[in-house]
C-alpha cells in the first residue's frame, strides 16, 4: 500500500513525533486527569493550554485574538475533548483495524525516539557503500564541444556539408566556436551528466556519444535537432560513487537500514514475551488486482 508507506515515511518526522507525543501527554495528564479514577466528568483547561490555543490563532491571523475569540477557541477545545471521551466510552476505537494500525505506528515512533540511531563513522559508511554498490551509481559524464548543422539550412547537401566541415575541424587551428549553424544549445560542456545531455539533445544523441573516440572530431552524430560534429574531450564512465561524492545519500541510506534493523530487534524482543497459537488453515491464491499498462510512445 503506497499510502501507508508514504504516510509512514513522513510520519517519522521528529516534529510530528513531538506533536504526537505532545498531544498524547496533553490528553493523558492535562485533561483527562482521570476518568479511570472516577473523575471522568472533570475537564480542566489550564493556562498553558489556553496559551497554546492563542498561539495557534496568532500564527494564522498575525494578530492576537480578542476576548470572544479566545472564548470560542476554548469552547471548541472543550467540545473536541468531550467528543473524544464520549467516542471512547462508546467503544468506537475498539475492533477498528485502522485505530489498531495507528497505535502500532505510534508505538513505533515512540520506540524510534527512545532508541535513536547514532551518527555513523566514515568507516561504517565506506563499508556500507562497498556492500551496496548498485544503490550509488554515478552517471556517465562528458566534456565535449558540439557543432550543429540545421537540416533546414542544408537540405540535400547536409551530409556532404557535414563531411567537409569535419575535415576542416580536424585541421589544426580550426575555430569550432564559429563553425556550423547557430543554435540555442551551448557549444561546449564540462562534465555534464548523461541524463542532462539526453534532455537537451535527445536520448539518441547521448547513446551515440558513448562510442565516439576521445580527443578527436567525430560525427556526424544525430540528435533531435539534426546532426552534430562532436569533440568528446573526456568521458568519465559510470561508476560507483566514492563516499566523498555521495556522502549525504550514503548516510541517509545507512541510517534507514539501521533503523529498520533496530525496529526488527524491538519487535523480536516483544514477540518473545508472547505465546502465539495460529489455527491450521489453507492458503487460497487470489488473482492479482491492478494493471500494469505501460504508457509510452
Amino acid at each position: 500500500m503506497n499510502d501507508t508507506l508514504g504516510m509512514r515515511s513522513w510520519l517519522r518526522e521528529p516534529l510530528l513525533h513531538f506533536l504526537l507525543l505532545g498531544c498524547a501527554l496533553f490528553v493523558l495528564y492535562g485533561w483527562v486527569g482521570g476518568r479511570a479514577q472516577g473523575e471522568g466528568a472533570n475537564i480542566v483547561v489550564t493556562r498553558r493550554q489556553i496559551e497554546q490555543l492563542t498561539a495557534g490563532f496568532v500564527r494564522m491571523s498575525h494578530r492576537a485574538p480578542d476576548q470572544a475569540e479566545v472564548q470560542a477557541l476554548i469552547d471548541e477545545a472543550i467540545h473536541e475533548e468531550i467528543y473524544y471521551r464520549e467516542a471512547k466510552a462508546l467503544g468506537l476505537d475498539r475492533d477498528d483495524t485502522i485505530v489498531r494500525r495507528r497505535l502500532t505506528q505510534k508505538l513505533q515512533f515512540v520506540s524510534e525516539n527512545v532508541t535513536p540511531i547514532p551518527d555513523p563513522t566514515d568507516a561504517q559508511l565506506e563499508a556500507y557503500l562497498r556492500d551496496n554498490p548498485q544503490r550509488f551509481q554515478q552517471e556517465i559524464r562528458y566534456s565535449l564541444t558540439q557543432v550543429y548543422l540545421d537540416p533546414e539550412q542544408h537540405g540535400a547537401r547536409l551530409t556532404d556539408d557535414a563531411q567537409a566541415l569535419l575535415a576542416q575541424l580536424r585541421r589544426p587551428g580550426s575555430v569550432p566556436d564559429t563553425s556550423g549553424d547557430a543554435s540555442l544549445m551551448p557549444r561546449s560542456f564540462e562534465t555534464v551528466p548523461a541524463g542532462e545531455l539526453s534532455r537537451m539533445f535527445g536520448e539518441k544523441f547521448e547513446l551515440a556519444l558513448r562510442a565516439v573516440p576521445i580527443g578527436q572530431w567525430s560525427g556526424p552524430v544525430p540528435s533531435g535537432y539534426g546532426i552534430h560534429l562532436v569533440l568528446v574531450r573526456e568521458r568519465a564512465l559510470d561508476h560507483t560513487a566514492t563516499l566523498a561524492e555521495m556522502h549525504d545519500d550514503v548516510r541517509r541510506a545507512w541510517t534507514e537500514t539501521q533503523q529498520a534493523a533496530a525496529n526488527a530487534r524491538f519487535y523480536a524482543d516483544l514477540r518473545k514475551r508472547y505465546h502465539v497459537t495460529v489455527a491450521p488453515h489453507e492458503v487460497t491464491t487470489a488473482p492479482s488486482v491492478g494493471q500494469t499498462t505501460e504508457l509510452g510512445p
Partner: protein
Amino acid sequence: MKRSQHFATLMFGLSLPSLIAGCASKPAEQAVTPPPVAPAVPPPIAPAVTASAAASPKYPSRVFFGDTHLHTALSLDAGAAGGKLLPPEAYRFAKGEEVTSATGQKAKLSRPLDFLVVADHSDQMGFITDLAAGKPELLANPLGKKWHDLMTSGKGMEAAMSIITTFAQGKFPKDMMYNPGTTGYTSTWQAIIKAAEDANQPGKFTAFIGYEWTSLVNGANLHRNVLFRDNGDKASQVEPFTNYAPGSSNPRDLWKWMTAYEQKTGGQVLAIAHNGNLSNGIMFPLIESFNGKPLDREYVEQRAKRERIYEVTQIKGDGETHPFLTPNDEFSDFERWDKGNLDLTQKKKPEMLQFEYARSALKNGLKLESQLGTNPYKFGMIGSTDSHTSLATADDNNFWGKIYGSEPSPRRTQHPFMKTPLATIMGWEETASGYAAVWANENTRASLFDAMQRKEVYATTGPRMTVRFFGGWDYSAADAKNDVAAAGYAKGVPMGGDLTSPAAGKSPTFLVAAMKDPEGGNLDRVQIIKGWMDEKGALQEKVYDVAWSGERKPGANGKLPAVGNTVDVANATWTNTIGAAQLTQTWQDPDFSPALRAFYYVRVLEIPTPRWTAYDAKRYNLKLGKEVPMTTQERAYTSPIWYTPAK
C-alpha cells in the same frame, strides 16, 4: 446557501458530478522590487552551479522545465475521488522515478522535470488522508467514523458523495474542520514542508514549498497557487491562507497574507492565478466583483506586485485567447473550456470572455495603466498541469489525466468529466497540458523564483521547446544568425522586460529563436502577437508570422498556408518530414508609434502531432466519435515585452 453549495464543488476545482464520474469510472476497483523599467540590463548574475555550462555566461544559459501546480491525495477532492499518492511520491515521480499510481498502474515520466511545486488545496488540507488512515480524532466523530468505514470497505464513492453533500449543506462538523490552528492541519502543513525539504536538491532538482488558495465566488474560479522562495525554516512559521474562515475569498486578503508573511519572516512568496476561463468574467476584472466598484489604485498596485506570472494553459483548458475575442486568429480555437463557471452552475456569456483570457487581459491592462498609473495585468506566462493524481504529466503519449477517474483506462475518454443540468464536459476534453519553462542561472529555489518574478518564463502545452525572445532598438539580421542569447542580452531585454525611450524615428526590434523539443514534433511557425492602445484609447491587436518552415509564402489574405499534416491517427504516429528543427528571426514592428502603449509576446507552433486521445484509441483499440479531436498543434507562449511611452 448558495455559497455553501459551492463549498465542496468549487473550492477544489472539481464538482460533485465530476467526483461521481471519477469514482464511477474506477478501473478494476520580502517585498519584491520590480525589475528596472528602462535600462536593458541582464538579470542578476550568479555563478553557474551545474558543471554543464562550460563558458559560464553572465545570463541564464539554460531553461528549466517544471510544474507549479500539482495536487496530491492531501487535497480533499483528490483524496475523496480515490487519489492515494502523497507529496514524497509526487516528487519522486517528477524526478523520473517509477511509482505505482492510485489505480495500480506503473507510471514514469519519459524525462524528469527540473522542478515541482506540490500545491494542495489549503482548505481542509490533509483531512481526507487522515480520515482514510483512521485518525482517532476524526473517528471520534460519528460522521467521521461512518465515512472512514465506507472508505475502508470499498465504498469510496458513497463516502465521497456523503462528504461532499455534507459540505454542500453546510453541515460539516466543526470539530472535524481541518483549518489553520488545528493539530491535524498543522501537522499536514509540516509534512508538506518536510516532503519538499527532503526532495529539494539544489543544482539538480528544486522542490518548492507551496499551496493552492482556492477562492470561489458563486462558482467562479479565482484560485491562486502560492509559492515560497524560502526553505522550511521560514515557511513553517505560518500556515496557509484559506478560502474559508479564518481565510477569505477576496484576493486582496491573500495579498495581505503575503505581505504579512514577508514582514514576519523576511522571506518571499508569489501567487499565480489560473483558469480565468472558468471564472465567468471575474479573473481579470475592470469592475471588482467583490464591491462592484472600478479597480482602485491599491488593487492594481498590489496585483501587479503579487501576481507577476499567470498559468495560461493546463488540463482544464488553454487560456491564451478565444475565437470570440480574436476571430481573425486561426489558431485561437485551441483546447477551449468555455461552457460555464468552474462547477457548471452558470453558463458562459460572450461578454464575460474578455475578462477571462490572457491576451484580452494584457490589453485591458494597458488601459488600466493609462488610468491608474499601474498595470495590474502585466504578467508573464507559464503552463502547469493542475493534475490531482500526484503525477505531473503533460505529454500526449504519457498522459495520466486530471484525477483518479481519468488515469489511463479504456473508458476515460468517453466518460463525463463533469455533468450538470447545464452542460457536460467529457473526459476527452481534458487537455494534456502544460509545463512552466524558466530561464534561470541555476536550478535552485532562489534562482527559479527570481526568474519567475522578473517574468523570464514561458508556457508550453507539454513539449520541452526552447524559446528565446528579446526586445531592443538595435537588433540586426545578423544577430539571429549568431549567438542569439549573447546579442539578445547585450542589446536589449529578455521576455518579461520593458522597453521605453526610443531614439527618434526608431521602431523596436525583436530577436526570437525557438528550438523544437528534441523528442517531439518539428516547428511550424513563430508568431509575434502585438497588443496596443491606439490614439483614441481603443485596444487593438495583431498576429504576425515572423518565421516559418519550408518555402511557404503568405497568400493574398496575408495568411501563411498551413504547414501540412503527417499524423497517422490510426497508429498514433507522425513524421518530422515537415517543419523545422529551429526557427530564428529578427523582426521589427512595422506599425510602431512611440506615443502608444504596447506589448509583444511570442507564440510558437509545432507541426500537428497525435493528441492524447489518439494514443488512447490506439492503445485500447477504441472507436471514438467524430467530435473527439485526434490531432493537436502543441505550442509555447512567452511572457510579453512591454513598450511604455515616456511621460
